[in-house]
């Protein structure tokens, strides 16, 4: 059995300690050692973004981070995005706007989108596409994801201004045409 290292870190606001082997990635430790399986493995080599977590606020592919590098860091995973009793606006918009099909890419997109919208709640379509280009989705063609992120940013900005968040159907819905 390989020698293990003790790591002290904060995950979703809670102090967390674990023992890991030097060769283990942060993704592996999250999923296998800590039973936090919200972060997904699509490639294990930094190409798909399904494993995205925030490391000190920055989105990283957790499959490319060694678990021992998490020492002293603050980590946010998809499990830490919602409030205790309420989904985050990004999660809410993903659901209302059908921005997921199989859903396996969704945790990565939500975490990446959070990093973007926390910095800039009103990104352009191009900025969203650019920032999300490291996250692969094979089901949706990205259309509804981009719209959901854009709408979530608007909601976040409105919430930040303390304004009412009621919206009457999302713009994404109104733009889709339906002919009979």
């Amino acid at each position, binding site marked *: 059995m390989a020698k293990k290292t003790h790591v002290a870190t904060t995950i979703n606001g809670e102090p967390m300690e674990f023992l890991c082997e030097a060769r283990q990635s942060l993704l592996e430790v999250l999923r296998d050692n800590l039973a936090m399986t919200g972060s997904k493995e699509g490639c294990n080599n930094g190409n798909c973004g399904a494993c995205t977590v925030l490391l000190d606020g920055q989105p990283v592919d957790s499959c490319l981070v060694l678990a021992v590098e998490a020492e002293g860091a603050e980590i946010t995973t998809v499990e830490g995005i919602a409030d205790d009793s309420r989904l985050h606006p990004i999660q809410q918009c993903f659901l209302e706007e*059908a921005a997921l*099909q199989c*859903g396996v890419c969704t*945790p990565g997109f939500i975490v990446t989108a959070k990093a973007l919208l926390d910095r800039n709640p009103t990104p352009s379509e191009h900025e969203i596409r650019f920032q999300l280009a490291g996250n*692969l989705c094979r089901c949706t*063609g990205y259309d509804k994801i981009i719209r959901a992120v854009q709408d979530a940013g608007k909601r976040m900005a409105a919430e930040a201004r303390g304004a009412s968040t009621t919206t009457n159907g999302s713009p994404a819905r109104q733009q889709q045409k339906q002919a009979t």
Partner: protein
Amino acid sequence: MAQAESHPRKYKVIGTRPVRHDGADKVTGRAIYGADLRLNGMVHGKILRSPHAHAVIKSIDTSAAAKLPGVVAVTTSADFPDLQDKIADLGEGAVNLAHLGANVLAHGKALYKGHAVAAVAATSPHVAQEALSLIKVEYEPLPAVTWVLDAMKDDAPLLHDDVYTKSMGKKADKPSNIAAHIHFEKGDVEDAFAGSDLVVEREFKTASVHQGYIEPHVSTALWNQDGHLTIWTSTQGSFTARQQTAELLQVPISQVTVVPCEIGGGFGGKIAVYLEPVAAMLSRKCGRPVKMVMSRDEVFEATGPTPGSSMRVKIGATKDGKLTAGEAWLAYDAGAFPGGVIGPGCMCVFSCYEFPAARVDGYDVLDNKPKTQAYRAPGATQAAFACESVIDELAEKLGIDPIEFRLKNAAKEGTRRVDGPVYPRVGFIETLEAAKASDHWKSPLEGKNRGRGIASGYWFNIGLKSSAAANVNPDGTVSLLEGSTDIGGTRTSVAMQLAETLGITAEAVHPKVVDTDSVGYTDVTGGSRVTFATGLAAYEVGRDILRQMCERAAILWECDAAEVESVDGEFKTKDKRMTFAELAGKLSQTGGPVVGRATVNPEGPTNGFGTHIVDVEVDPDTAKVTVLRYTAIQDAGKAIHPSYVEGQMQGGAVQGIGWALNEEYVFDGEGRMANASYLDYRMPTALDVPHIDTIIVEVPNPAHPYGVRGVGETPIVPPPAAMAVAVYHATGVRMQELPMSPPKLWAAMQK
């Protein structure tokens, strides 16, 4: 079978956009996908794979691996029962079990790089990985072949010495890589070509592409000490996974339970079993649950892909734009084992048009690739690339607008396809009219190096078997149990049909996808069938519940059940009424719970048509193609949840764009895949595509009570052809090869 309700109805639930029932779990990371499963005492399995594309396996020595501390079991194909050439019907296609078994673990010969050779289970995935390096395999490498036309040559390396060409019911007398020849013909083809004013004939080729689902294959098996085998897996069909696994292990199906986990995409690639029987065998040996997860390179090298193809299409027309005759010659590779998707390719190549005479020849060809699998409208995309390219060229040469040309020849009710079936009411013409009326088609495209393309596509909705049951709860909600694994929101599209039938809200139905012991047999999630066929089962469940509840109301009201009507969520007689929820709360006074059940097997496929428009810009220096604007139009029959219909259209279109522009299996000189990673395989990212506009056309399907047509597959069919036409208008070059990647397009542009 249920008939479409003849008067268009106002629906309460159908056509709305509720939040999906499994949504919260999926956006919070709580949903349990196959890889998220943890069982007590679980160990981890890994597979040793062939480094050669073609080799005789002379010996396998696992003794050193077995001795590594932490290793609990080792297996090879020698542990599995010998399977004769038995054909098992898996619903959406049959499979030869001997071949399936030899694909799961090689028997005597490795037939592609990545072919499974042996497997180990150990206390950690790292130990299992280490153990693989201790297995000694002696190979005798053989020449390999990975291009379909090379594989068809007389002197090509032969994959199997027991595969003989089957053609028109006859079997050839010597073994061949050509496993089957298909031939369809209608009318006098020679005569019809002779009477044409214009004939265009072109040759096309396409590379193999992978389905590309983000979740790698994963299975966990527990062969319990009482002999019962439970398998938790990510599969498109839990019942077909059960059947395949039971057959390969030669145990009765009643000894196997398959528990479908959440599945991270399939697109046709998660129907055949790969890991399930191996995990089961390892579990039998060690008495513990064994979990096996593929890595991404294993997914590329050992699963999927869809066939590479070589095609020749010849079409004739009169001066005034009527098609006269068509001829297609299609060779698709099947990979290492026979039974690719050439059949549907042949059925679909001319399926959009009324051809007075046509002939199709198709070849199912073995080569050293993984056994090819279905990929969204399997076989149709390649064929449409060829046919639609020729259609566009004919329209151009005749000086007819491409939409008008299609309208003049469009398949409609009564059209007989070259393979025989006659269409019932279909909506192809309506998609063309919608394309013509679209803002996209009407807006001029300006700018240098830009072009617009349009193409159409066709795919079936297979019917097949679906079962469902539902329990009425005392609070007026209904719990729905179904057997169709949910890959893209079908829990909701099925639940909505039950809700509509019962007159309750979508939220009042709680759908659950359950294991193979908990619901009746249900065929795979594939063939665009779930919202159609399992939706039909949900409708029948609803009718069964309503019938029983009318009887219960009659007991309460002391009248005849025939006097009770159910309308829009209410039960009533001439002078009494009660809501669904009120009656649900009184069931215990009238004899106890109500359970609805249904099993359906709609016969005869129905049909889905789509038309796509795309604008591109081609960089004249690098030949990089940028997609500027895209519109997908499709006949959905009736869109149950329009957002998810749009999502299918958008997702399919982007997969088609990837197929058109970049995706391909690249092989080295020894037949080994050289780009088995997402980085090198290059699927479209968010930055590579624009928004995909959608127009849903609704021409109700006469074979479904709400008019549903499946929508999942058609959207991948038109894109490569539409993209090729757009590239032509941007560059003057008609590309007859996929992908139109920069090196290939650039070379063509220099001519």
